[in-house]
């Protein structure tokens, strides 16, 4: 059921529709099969993949907050070799492009994951999660300083010719400075936002709820912040933007596109309703019909005019 009005181009990838899953909310695609297949999405963005297995954070790892949730999963993943032997054969059976989200504790680790996956044809591109702590810089996230963000982007850029997307952290003073730095370092596209750092305290135990003390806030509660950042970054860079942060409806998705996103991702919204991706696509189609829009690209950044 392809609809030419929904087709978009992100970093050279032709996507049949502008909807992706946000990394970490969709595993490697298998878990949502009771509700829809990976082919529903314009592309699949995988859960983060590291060089060796990461065990993740101690529980509790998630906690609901008003119109949102905190998570501190700790990027638990089986490592790139298990990803190749277990997830790739599954994803290969579908048509939709696969964008592998890459995590690391050092620049070398990011590069190693990308080099290992670069020759695998089903991998269409990479998304760098630069919200990981940089162990060589005292654990400060790569994505919070323009030079660190640029450094990891440039190093990965040298390792692959495949489309390179960099996912920006919102936990910064000026997200446009980071956006410009990674664009200059060779990013083909940007995705934003990652989660906003937050926490919760349990009154009975007098202690932080999350095992990791702090965690990332996501869901509808963060949407206005995410939308503002997409709007600002659109003005600052010329590479395409994948917008995300609390998208729970077609209207939300369209807002991000009007703010400047070429594509959008749904994450926590799927936890609210596992059928949400299908509903968003139906809703976008309905809107294009009602408003007589020939192609969704016509709406991109329209709020700036």
């Amino acid at each position, binding site marked *: 059921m392809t609809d030419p009005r929904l087709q978009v181009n992100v970093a050279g990838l032709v996507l049949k529709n502008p909807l992706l899953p946000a990394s*970490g*909310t*969709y*595993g490697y695609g298998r*878990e*949502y099969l*009771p*509700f829809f297949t990976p082919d529903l999405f314009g592309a699949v963005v995988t*859960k983060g993949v590291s060089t060796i297995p990461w*065990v*993740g954070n*101690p*529980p*509790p*790892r*998630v*906690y*609901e907050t*008003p*119109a*949102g*949730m905190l*998570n501190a*999963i700790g990027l*638990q993943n089986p490592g790139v070799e298990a990803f190749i032997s277990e997830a790739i054969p599954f994803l290969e059976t579908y048509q939709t492009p696969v964008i592998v989200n890459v995590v690391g504790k050092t620049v070398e680790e990011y590069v190693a994951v990308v080099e290992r996956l670069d020759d695998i044809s089903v991998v269409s591109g990479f998304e760098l999660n630069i919200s990981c702590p940089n162990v060589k810089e005292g654990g400060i996230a790569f994505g919070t300083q323009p030079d660190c963000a640029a450094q990891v982007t440039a190093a990965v850029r040298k390792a692959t010719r495949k489309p390179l997307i960099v996912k920006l952290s919102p936990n910064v003073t000026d997200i446009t400075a980071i956006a410009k730095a990674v664009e200059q370092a060779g990013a083909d596209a940007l995705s934003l936002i990652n989660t906003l750092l937050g926490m919760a305290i349990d009154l009975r135990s007098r202690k932080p709820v999350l095992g990791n003390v702090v965690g990332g806030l996501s*869901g*509808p509660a963060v949407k206005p912040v995410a939308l503002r950042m997409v709007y600002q970054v659109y003005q600052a860079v010329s590479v395409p933007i994948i917008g995300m942060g609390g998208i*729970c409806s077609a209207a939300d998705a369209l807002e991000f596109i009007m703010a400047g996103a070429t594509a959008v991702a749904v994450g*926590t919204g*799927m*936890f*609210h*309703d*596992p*059928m949400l991706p299908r509903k968003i696509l139906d809703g976008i189609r309905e809107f294009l019909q009602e408003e007589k829009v020939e192609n969704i690209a016509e709406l991109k950044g329209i709020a700036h005019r």
Partner: protein
Amino acid sequence: MKQTEALILERTALGPGYYYYRLLCPELADKAKPGQFIEIKASSEETLDPLLSRPISIYRINPEEGSLAVIFKTVGRGTRRIAALQRGNKVSVFGPVGNGFMLPEEAGRIALIAGGIGMPPLFSLAERYPEKDFTLFYGGRSATDLLALDAWEQLGVPYKLATDDGSAGFHGLVTSLFEREHLAASFDYVIACGPKPMLKAVQQLAARFRLPGAISLEAYMACGVGACLGCTCATSKGYRRVCVDGPVFEISEVTFDD
């Protein structure tokens, strides 16, 4: 696993904060096994808050009627929203989720140990296997926390009660009651569901008595399908997902922190 709009056939308040719901959801009732749970949406169609569905264990499975029954306790915003739903309302649910109980063939004399709202999944298990010899040990704060005793009676499963305040049955912990009774009854299998301190005590007793068994856990959950890794528990095999690797685990596998 299926998502559907379930019609509420029956709603009964069972006591302070406890509710019984019978939901018409034939596709789920067809597939459900004892020990599994369903995710019930806690928000109305128009709101996104509370955002996440609530995992609620299945109390009775009736494939002929196409219904599932649940019993839950209101503990926060989500469960209070669900408890406001009335007979004739529809509610969005998906499931069944989880592995469910695996009762080994050789399990003969089976002790079921329930703490508070951990009772419902044990009922679905006992109802599924009428030929097995179950005894229920059921603990709660007070007599009003011990639910559906008439249903257990109809099922013909003997039960022994324990309350923290002594208002019903044994005055003290259900695990102390079980420890005392086991010496005479010599169970050969134990299945427990309840709060973590109780499960930890059951695990220690099972180790001491060399009893095989299983425990059913609960956890904060986000996706409810196994994708987000938010509900993991520590086990001897590393972090495992309570939602789809559990909620039932082999009794010695789970690592409880101190």
